[in-house]
């Protein structure tokens, strides 16, 4: 396996006794576009073989730039998209796409969408939006009102009575996102899949929503998968981070492992542009074109933009040929720090940015 486990985290293999609550197994999602003008033909591999585990009570962040397949993976985990390969397992059992099974599944796994402006029906009041899931699964129940009020106050909308008869356009962005979260919480889910939950919110509201998610994890034991392009968010909220590039996870590990000691050049580049990053070589601006999922490069999918390959470091480490010809294996999704990079595997993975100097000086 080209992506050797970092020796410092040799805990891999001990995870087998506990089944993760949600698991993606070699999930692939490809969209074939029809014959379109401008050479739009081809198959876009939005998710191209992803293994990812979410353990009970764990928050996993899925980070990566726009268009790398985060949203598609999140949708696939919810059964909104059918994987073209691989499978999704919930509590160890593969997800069935029969509508009855999906209904039961969606009671326990909830989605929080990217855009709180659009994820509420403008013609429905807050009460109607929150009660929606309950009505779908249980019909009209006697304690409906109490449950809606409880979900709203859990989501931080207090007192709930003030919000029940409001329409979405009367709420602020943060309040709308809380309504969406309340709508997800009313069914007492076990897993929350949040797709850029705070991307369109301003900084103060963002903090509130994040605190809310942490509280929910603490109080309700909620597991969550949070897709985001914001590394700061991942740092604040997640236990583990999976970095995604062009449809595949390129680095996975705990927050500290991935964000303080990044191994993959892509992760390092992402981190280096943060204002107070620990990366010493200064901001690494990725050159080249943004990746096209219809034409995934051969070899390592990151190699056309890889600063390590471009600077010749990979050649010095003797992996330049592998970079352009051998596709690194798909990373396992469980705990442990793993990187899909030939160079990092050869060099042994820089513990800290300083060790990068090692092979260069020798």
């Amino acid at each position, binding site marked *: 396996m080209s992506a050797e486990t970092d020796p410092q985290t040799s805990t891999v293999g001990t995870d087998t006794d506990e089944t993760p609550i949600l698991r993606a197994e070699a999930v692939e999602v490809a969209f074939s576009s029809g014959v379109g003008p401008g050479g739009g033909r081809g198959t876009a591999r939005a998710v191209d073989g992803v293994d990812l585990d979410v353990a009970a009570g764990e928050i996993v962040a899925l980070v990566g730039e726009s268009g790398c397949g985060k949203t598609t993976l999140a949708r696939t985990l919810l059964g909104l998209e059918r994987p073209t390969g691989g499978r999704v397992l919930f509590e160890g059992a593969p997800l069935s796409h029969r509508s009855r099974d999906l209904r039961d599944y969606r*009671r326990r796994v909830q989605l929080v969408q990217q*855009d709180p402006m659009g*994820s509420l029906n403008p*013609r429905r*009041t807050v009460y109607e939006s929150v009660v929606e899931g309950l009505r*779908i*699964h249980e019909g009209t129940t006697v304690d409906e009102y109490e449950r809606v009020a409880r979900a709203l106050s859990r989501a931080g909308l207090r007192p709930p009575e003030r919000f029940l*008869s409001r329409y979405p356009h009367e709420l602020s962005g943060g309040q709308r996102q809380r309504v*969406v979260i309340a709508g997800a919480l009313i069914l007492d889910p076990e897993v929350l899949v949040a797709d850029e939950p705070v991307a369109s919110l301003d900084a103060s509201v963002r903090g509130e929503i994040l605190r809310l998610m942490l509280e929910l994890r603490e109080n309700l034991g909620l597991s969550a998968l949070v897709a985001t392009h914001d590394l700061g968010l991942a740092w604040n909220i997640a236990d583990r981070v999976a970095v995604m590039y062009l449809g595949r996870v390129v680095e996975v590990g705990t927050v500290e492992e991935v964000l303080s000691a990044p191994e993959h050049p892509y992760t390092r580049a992402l981190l280096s542009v943060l204002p107070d990053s620990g990366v010493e070589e200064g901001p690494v601006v990725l050159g080249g074109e943004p990746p096209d999922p219809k034409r995934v490069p051969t070899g390592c999918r990151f190699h056309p933009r890889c600063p390590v390959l471009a600077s010749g470091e990979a050649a010095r480490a003797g992996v330049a040929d592998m970079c352009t010809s051998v596709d690194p294996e798909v990373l396992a999704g469980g705990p442990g720090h793993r990187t899909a990079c030939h160079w990092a595997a050869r060099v042994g993975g820089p513990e800290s940015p300083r060790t990068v100097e090692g092979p260069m000086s020798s």
Partner: protein
Amino acid sequence: MSAPTGSVPGPRPEPPTGPEPTAGRSPRSLARRRRREALLRFAREYARNRAGMFGLVSLLVIGALALTAPLFIDQTHLTVTGAPGDPFQPPGGDHPLGTDNFGRSVLDLIIWGARVSLTVGLLATFVSVSLGTLAGITAGHFGSSGGTGGRVVASIIMRVTDWFLVLPTLVLAVALAAVLPRGTGTIILAIGLTVWPATARLVRAQTLAVEARPYVERARALGGGHAHVMGWHVLPNVMPVVLAQTTLLVATSIIAESTLAFLGMGDPTTISWGALLQAARTSGAISAGIWWYIVPPGLAIAVVALSFTLCGRAVEAVINPRLRRRS
């Protein structure tokens, strides 16, 4: 009814300040109150549209006359044998609009004819709007989120719609009216079955727009099925468009009814505006220059069709803020 709350920016209600006096109120009554407010807002916006108000008032007057007609028109006066006047009396005196070839008062005939014309217009519109909405929502919903099977169903529905769309409406209606037994019901059915494709196209387009919204995805992620998405999300959002389309279609239906009656496809025993025109033509009123027998039914048709169109445009303008500035 779902008032167009979301899409109408306009004057929004003041967000309630401080804790609302909600104690002891069920969310249902709160929702009802909100809906009433939205309806009031809609009414206020509509009242600002002068053409729309003109249409509404004239419709109310015509409707009231048609409904109360039996109170002030003696039905025996409308039969050929019980006609109160002499044939072709010019307007004036007892008969403000003159008499027809049997001596019946043209004014009475027109007021009585409004009953049939309006009934046919409204019922035919109901038939076609229901049919069009059903076809449009089904095709739009399954076309966008029903998978391969759904797309097949949707394209079958839309091809049928297209087929009805390219058939000349009048020819189809005439054919249907000729095949089916004569009567008002047949006319309603013939019109209803021929004018629905436009509604279906319109509703489908709107459905596709709604289906692309994140809240529909959220509903599916919550576990909602097709019925839930269509009934809870799509229908309320297409209702305003359907409503505007309805008022516009009534005018079309009334004209279609008149046309069919004028062509002799209607029930000869019922009095409608189209039937009056046809009677005027067959009795030689046109060549004899009996204008009071020909002009009033035609004017009545034009006024009602215009009123419905004005109302429809006004509703559309209130619903669609982009149209409002121009109107």
